[in-house]
């Protein structure tokens, strides 16, 4: 297993490097809710725990996939105050969910070190927004590290515990996709061998944030931040590379790597102030750097977080500052070496040419799609057959969001995790249209329960669909409360979605297997007739789980084919159902054998019985 490697350096993903750093620090408790680009941090802990347990060894730490990010932070906060080193990881928007706990947690503080990892996603590779979570460090008064590559990710995770313990507050470790999902060499320290231990809770009135206590704690927190600012001046993560000259570049995160490669490429003589601890900033270090330069460029993705502070620090310095302010760099999307090279050469009047991105031949778009054999497609197809034309489909965060693409086009409104239910209630009040909402099984538990209570309490007329594919699929197939295995591989209690819905007061509940199209249609017809909130649990395992299981057991995946004698070219399979394994060759409809996962659902929708299982195996 890469994370447990003995031979140094090891090739680790940025996320794995964070796991490694925490293991080297002797981590006690890890909590998470999975989300791209953060998922592999937690998945690596899960894999390590399962592996060591299979070797009859004590992993030395406890790990859990929590129901959501807020609970994950709360669980670990309690562990930390009892003296256990903790780590909580999530994607950027996860911190919104956890923010209520997080902001007051900064007041209360921790005892053993606690690192909260937020993995941001500039360019929205896998996200609904590209918010810059560095701003949370200011809002919450949290010290923050910003690694540039896997090596730094590990070093900062390791060092973060010490700093958090020194200041007695949790530390924010902020990565982006291009740190989390970059693989690179990481120099290893030995793993800290230890037994799983318990802490002890010592009562303290200052842990109860009634107003009088909160007022006191706020000023304590500001004092801690002064201490953090002094540390930031000396910490080795903030440093200057001096290649001479009077031109300077201040940078952080993955932009640092682009800057280094680009100045090599451009043969630029300059100084670099590389910031690894970006909150609080080392004001004196910055000021001295500014004094030594005539011109300074600030290269950071998203918001001008560093830039605005640098401009304030530089207020009475004689130095020209370039960045987002004058429009040389964008606040949008992630940077690339080309973007950095272009802006630096423009500002410093250097030559850099880039060729255009787009080829002459027009290429077909290839956005992500629901997989061939995905059970969500079957549910969506069935729903589309039975709903009125102007039905509103609030959707949610998961693979099933991809139902927005043609031919299904079954996603109309999306805000965040759990928003499908709340917005379904609103649409059912605000219009005379039918409302059918969709969410995944993990999303159901994460943040949809209050929405369902609201729907029941106010009797909103909507069909709430839970697409239960027995896993958290999009982020890499993690378990959730509706499954029966923990992140450590132990058997734990499974909550049945239909039981929970019943407990919340839903009176009309259907449980169907979507791979049976006719039964699924009937279930939705009944639910649409019901006045008030109804829940349909559409349950069939993610096809990727089925395929990998078959492969593991050496079973063949026998593709389906089209009997061209029977096919009438009605193209229902393409134009209404839309499994990506179908394609046209001339006028003939065909199935791509590499893509077909042998789910067999298309057989039910072909009116001419033209779809058959292939006779001879590969």
């Amino acid at each position, binding site marked *: 297993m890469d994370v447990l490697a003995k031979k140094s350096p090891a090739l680790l993903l940025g996320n794995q490097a964070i796991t490694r750093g925490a293991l080297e620090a002797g981590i006690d408790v890890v909590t998470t809710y999975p989300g791209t680009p953060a998922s592999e941090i937690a998945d690596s802990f899960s894999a390590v725990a399962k592996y060591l347990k299979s070797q009859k060894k004590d992993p030395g730490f406890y790990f859990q996939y929590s129901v959501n990010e807020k609970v994950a932070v709360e669980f670990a906060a309690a562990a930390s105050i009892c003296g256990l080193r903790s780590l909580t990881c999530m994607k950027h928007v996860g911190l919104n969910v956890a923010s209520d706990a997080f902001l007051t947690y900064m007041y209360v503080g921790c005892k053993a070190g606690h690192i909260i990892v937020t993995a941001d996603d500039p360019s929205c590779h896998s996200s609904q927004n590209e918010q810059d979570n560095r701003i949370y460090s200011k809002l919450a008064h949290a010290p923050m590290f910003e690694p540039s590559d896997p090596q730094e990710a590990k070093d900062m995770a390791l060092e973060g515990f010490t700093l958090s313990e020194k200041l007695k507050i949790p530390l924010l470790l902020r990565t982006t996709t291009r740190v989390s*999902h970059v693989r690179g060499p990481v120099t290893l320290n030995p793993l800290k061998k230890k037994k799983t231990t318990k802490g002890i809770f010592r009562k303290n009135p200052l842990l109860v944030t009634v107003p009088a206590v909160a007022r006191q704690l706020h000023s304590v927190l500001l004092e801690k931040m002064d201490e953090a600012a002094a540390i930031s001046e000396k910490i080795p993560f903030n440093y200057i590379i001096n290649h001479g000259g009077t031109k300077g570049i201040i940078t952080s995160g993955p932009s640092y790597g682009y800057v280094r490669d680009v100045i090599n490429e451009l043969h630029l003589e300059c100084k670099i102030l590389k910031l690894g601890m970006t909150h609080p900033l080392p004001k004196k270090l910055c000021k001295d750097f500014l004094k030594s330069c005539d011109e300074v460029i600030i290269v950071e993705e998203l918001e001008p977080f560093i830039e605005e502070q640098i401009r304030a620090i530089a207020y009475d310095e004689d130095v020209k500052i370039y960045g987002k302010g004058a429009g040389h760099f964008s606040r949008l999307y992630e940077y690339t070496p080309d973007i950095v090279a272009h802006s630096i050469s423009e500002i410093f009047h250097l030559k850099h040419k880039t060729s255009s991105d787009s080829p002459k031949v027009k290429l*077909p778009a290839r956005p992500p799609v629901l997989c061939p054999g995905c059970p969500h497609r079957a549910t969506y197809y069935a729903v589309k057959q039975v709903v009125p034309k102007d039905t509103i489909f609030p959707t949610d965060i998961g693979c099933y969001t991809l139902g927005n693409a043609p031919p299904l086009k079954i996603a109309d409104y999306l805000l965040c995790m759990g928003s499908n239910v709340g917005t379904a209630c609103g649409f059912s009040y605000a219009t005379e249209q039918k409302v059918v909402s969709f969410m995944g099984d993990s999303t159901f538990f994460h943040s949809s329960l209050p929405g369902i209570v609201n729907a029941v309490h106010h009797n909103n007329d909507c069909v709430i669909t839970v697409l239960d594919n027995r896993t958290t699929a999009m982020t890499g197939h993690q378990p959730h409360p509706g499954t029966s295995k923990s992140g450590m591989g132990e058997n734990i209690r499974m909550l049945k979605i239909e039981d929970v819905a019943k407990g919340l007061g839903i009176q009309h509940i259907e449980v169907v297997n979507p791979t049976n199209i006719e039964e699924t249609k009937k279930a939705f017809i009944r639910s649409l007739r019901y006045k008030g909130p109804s829940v349909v649990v559409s349950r069939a395992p993610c096809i990727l789980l089925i395929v990998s299981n078959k492969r593991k057991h050496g079973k063949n995946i026998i593709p389906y084919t089209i009997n061209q004698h029977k096919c009438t070219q009605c193209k229902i399979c393409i134009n209404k159902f839309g499994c990506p394994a179908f394609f046209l060759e001339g006028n003939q409809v065909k199935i791509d054998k590499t893509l077909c996962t042998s789910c067999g659902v298309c057989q039910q929708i072909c009116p001419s019985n033209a779809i058959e299982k292939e006779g001879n195996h590969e």
Partner: protein
Amino acid sequence: MNKTSIVFAGVGGQGILTAANILGKAALEANKKALIAEVHGMAQRGGAVECIINIGDVYSALICNDSADVLVSLEPVEALRQLSKIKKDRLVITDINPVIPPSVSLGIDTYPDLEDVFKEIQEKCRLIKIDALGLAIQSGARIAKNMVLLGALADTGLLPFLPQLLLKTIQKNLPSRYMAISEKAFDSGRVFLKNNNYVE
């Protein structure tokens, strides 16, 4: 400056990450630094995927346009999509078997004529077309296409390590139940390149 940049392109699910990981590990074995930009999450679901393997004196995993040394693609159109990344006159190796995106079947988009695709690639680079799917099927599994292409890449002389090291890395890192197929596929890629008399 001593660096080698490889772009691997294709469609999510074709085993690009596995190939990239093998290249990175082999680079480390050869005492070189390697940074790899991977794609996880939503884009993996059948979307266009590209993965950059940057080996040598490098600080970032991403590269400027016109700076890759070799482009390997598991799908012909995806090779063209990434063409801007590669230096002029360098080498493109691509599988010739299209994967038709649903937008094409639906009539929203058209899949270009492969001759046009290859022609445009050849205007900028040298091109090796390979029936990697066919060779993978002969080796025992369609999903071994990535190993066929790794095999073809191994003998181009463009990598800063020997084919033997790549094979060893495959043997060390891929599951044993596929090893016979992987080795066969890798070998068929190497043989293809030799038979086509390609030398850098």
